[in-house]
């Protein structure tokens, strides 16, 4: 079995995994980071979005071996102890979630948008979310949350 090594939320990790191990399986089943969700498992819903070398990717559609040596951030890597990340706080303040299943992917995807465009318009946010599906909210409060989170991050 190949050995994969990477940095996840600032910690170096390494494990022997089967070649066919998906990144999301590695995160959830080997590292216990179950905040990254498996929703559709067909690359459409975006519940599994994580950051790989600073960019958002769908971790259900990438093999762990493909990101050998990469620097990853998952939803667990955002909060500072008990203090939520400003984007997480914005989702709470704006009721940006109902069941919460899609939320980790929404937050990780939103942060990739904000690092490319620190002052997105509502249209920018709605277009960016084409790869993240939500079955509860109707998106309205998610968009509001991301706009508020972007402003909070600008300080």
């Amino acid at each position: 079995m190949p050995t994969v090594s990477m940095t996840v939320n600032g910690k170096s990790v390494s494990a022997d995994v089967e070649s066919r191990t998906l990144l999301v399986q590695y995160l959830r089943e080997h590292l216990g980071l179950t905040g990254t969700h498996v929703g559709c498992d067909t690359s459409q819903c975006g519940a599994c979005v994580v950051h790989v070398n600073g960019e958002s990717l769908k971790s259900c559609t990438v093999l762990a071996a493909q990101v050998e040596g990469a620097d990853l951030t998952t939803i667990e890597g955002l909060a500072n102890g008990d203090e939520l990340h400003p984007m997480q706080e914005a989702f709470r303040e704006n009721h940006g979630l109902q069941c919460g299943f899609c939320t980790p992917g929404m937050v990780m995807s939103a942060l990739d948008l904000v690092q490319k465009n620190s002052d997105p318009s509502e249209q920018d946010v709605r277009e960016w979310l084409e790869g993240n599906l939500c079955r509860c909210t109707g998106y309205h409060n998610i968009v509001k949350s991301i706009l508020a989170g972007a402003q909070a991050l600008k300080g």
Partner: protein
Amino acid sequence: MYEFNYQKANSAADAVQAVNSSDDGQFLAGGMTLIPTIKQRLAQPSDLIDLAGINDLVGVEEGEGSVTIKAMTRHVDVANNDIVKSKIPALANLADNIGDPQVRNRGTIGGSLANNDPAADYPAAVLGLNATIITNTREIIAEDYFDGMFTTSLEEGELVTAVRFPIPDKAAYTKFPNPASRYALVGVMVAQTNGEIRVAVTGAGQDGVFRASDIESALSGSWTVDAAKDVKMSDEGLNSDIHASADYRAHLISVMASRAVAAAG
């Protein structure tokens, strides 16, 4: 997923050798289609040869009257590339609307073209702009490259290394995306290059990308929005599925072509 061996290639030559020396190996580009296909057990390669670390296969170069995009260049990098944006903005725009941001962060032009999904966007660009596919052994013109749904004229172990696009006088791509997958229900590239008019349609045909010769003739007579919109496309040979009937797709081809003409100017 069935089991497979995974290896990273250091060069295009290494990759070709690795595929040729395996039982049933396949190149792995961005994996945005291949990984889901393997997950569904629709493919069972013995080996996956990952091209991701090969720097020679990444980048954009401007030539005389053409732009060459190397095979492992990601959609996001085509969309944001200054040469592509200034010389063939229709192509940058097409790349910027493939899938979703996460797919664009990983998927590649070479991977998309080797797969030749009948609803993918890049085939319409290659056929509409009359591009040439460059492989490790030869050059293939667009007309000879696409060979039906998920089929190309690539030989076993032949690797797409780059695509050379002639710079059009004007061009635009418009698609009607499936709202969940973002694949084209119908996508149309219209282009004028050195006086030749081409209209390439993806998403609609049972055999994958094709040229809409009726719209090409109409636009050769009059390059106007109405000329494209007034063409009544036949639904013969078009896909009919839960997303759209053949008749609806036929209608969309004229509408998308007319919008593309409006965008191209």
